[in-house]
């Protein structure tokens, strides 16, 4: 059983509003709107961070940082941009910065085994670690497929998060699927 969370304003006005409308209220300091946004995206953003980074400590830090940046930068949000893409962009930029730092020579890498984000799923060959298959993808491919498959973002939204065109996102996902299938067949 998962952890129990305090969720306020369930069934109230805030829960019937769109993300963009909630953000507008949140911009003027409305607590209930923040709570609703948080209840909609808190778990999703954490899931995204875990699937991309796999390290609980890193994820906890970046999770807090994502919502702090969302809070501090909320006056910059414009309703023309879908909120979902905006919040994932914040999280994604943080992930990229963190991965960049980790990729520097001399920065110790945590053991891959420490991550508990990806397990071998049923339906894949027993000898194949799904984690290894995903690891063979380029970072962009992995980013695109996680945003599409696990976070439920549309191509257009993924494009905004990644700074790519919709067609480029389509190609990234297509290549990612192709690579995954090759890995399965090879094993």
């Amino acid at each position, binding site marked *: 059983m998962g*952890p129990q969370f*305090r969720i306020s304003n369930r069934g109230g006005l805030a829960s019937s509003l769109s993300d963009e409308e909630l953000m507008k209220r949140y911009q003027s300091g409305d607590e209930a709107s*923040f709570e609703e946004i*948080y209840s909609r995206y808190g*778990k999703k953003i954490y*899931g995204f961070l875990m699937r991309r980074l796999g390290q609980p400590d890193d994820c906890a830090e970046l999770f*807090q940082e994502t919502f702090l940046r969302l809070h501090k930068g909320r006056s910059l949000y414009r309703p023309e941009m879908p909120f979902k893409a905006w919040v994932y962009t914040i999280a994604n930029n943080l992930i990229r910065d963190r991965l960049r730092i980790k990729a520097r020579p001399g920065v110790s890498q945590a053991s891959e085994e420490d991550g508990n984000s990806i397990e071998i799923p*049923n339906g894949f060959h027993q000898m194949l670690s799904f984690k290894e298959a995903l690891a063979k993808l380029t970072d962009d491919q992995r980013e695109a497929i996680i945003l599409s498959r696990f976070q439920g973002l549309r191509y257009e939204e993924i494009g905004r998060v990644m700074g790519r065109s919709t067609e480029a996102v389509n190609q990234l996902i297509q290549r990612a699927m*192709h690579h995954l299938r090759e890995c*399965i067949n090879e094993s």
Partner: protein
Amino acid sequence: MNLEKKKTTCEDSESLLVKKITGELLPEEKQSLESHLAQCALCVAKERELTREWQSFDSLPALEIPAELYEKTRETILGHLKRERSPLPLAESIPRGGVWSLLGPLAAGVAITGVSYALIRNSIDLKIHQQHILIALFSLWGILFAGGFWLILEGNRKKSLLLDAVASFSISITLLTLLISSLASGVDALRWFAMSAAYEVAVASNYFFGIGNTFVAGWGIHACLASFIGAFIFGVRRRPAFSQNALLGSFLITVLLSPAIYLHGSSHDHGYGILAFGALGTFVGAFIGVGMGSMGSFILRRILTPAT
């Protein structure tokens, strides 16, 4: 690209198949793809394979966020929002969590006690007031202030009879001590400031009650004023039912201030009479303060709350 005119080939079917399983296929693309699938067994097999691959992701475990992290982040943001809305953002930024919940009030209590002592020390005659009595007195104040600040800071989120009583008491005793300390410092400007209108009332009460001199009467008046202010603050801030607790809290001042009042009274040869006067002033002040605070609260609610 005009898709209606272009027929889907095996080469570009994979792109469309991926779009199909991700729910991104456009209506015109769907039509073209279905026409191709109707005549290409290879691409039908590819579609099955892709679908199975896509569905395999379902078996990955759900990633639950730790409840502690979820709550901590939520509290942090709500704290930021609260500070932004506060008319006194600096006061809201005082750290209140963890070890600060203990150190903050302790530091405030020690600071207030130190200020009181610094102001009052010139008027202390060690021949009359024994050192051990003074240490006990100031220690008692220090503890009371620290406890009071803790309740004021920590009690914001809670509402209980005990919290209200002790917090109102703490506000009252703090104000009273500062006023008395100012008086005792012997600085004319401070003395004038602290006495102000109360001094005039003290003259009148001395005339009517005939207890001690005007300075001694001022003690009673200040006890009355401090209780009034403390009770008024809580009368306004809380619901009327809660402001009743302020009466209790302010009344306690009489008991806890007794050593200080007695010290001063004995040094001026006024004995225990001043205790009775201080008690009366405190009680009357608290009573009026609760009444006016509750009335103020009622009027404010009527003005600020829109009619439904």
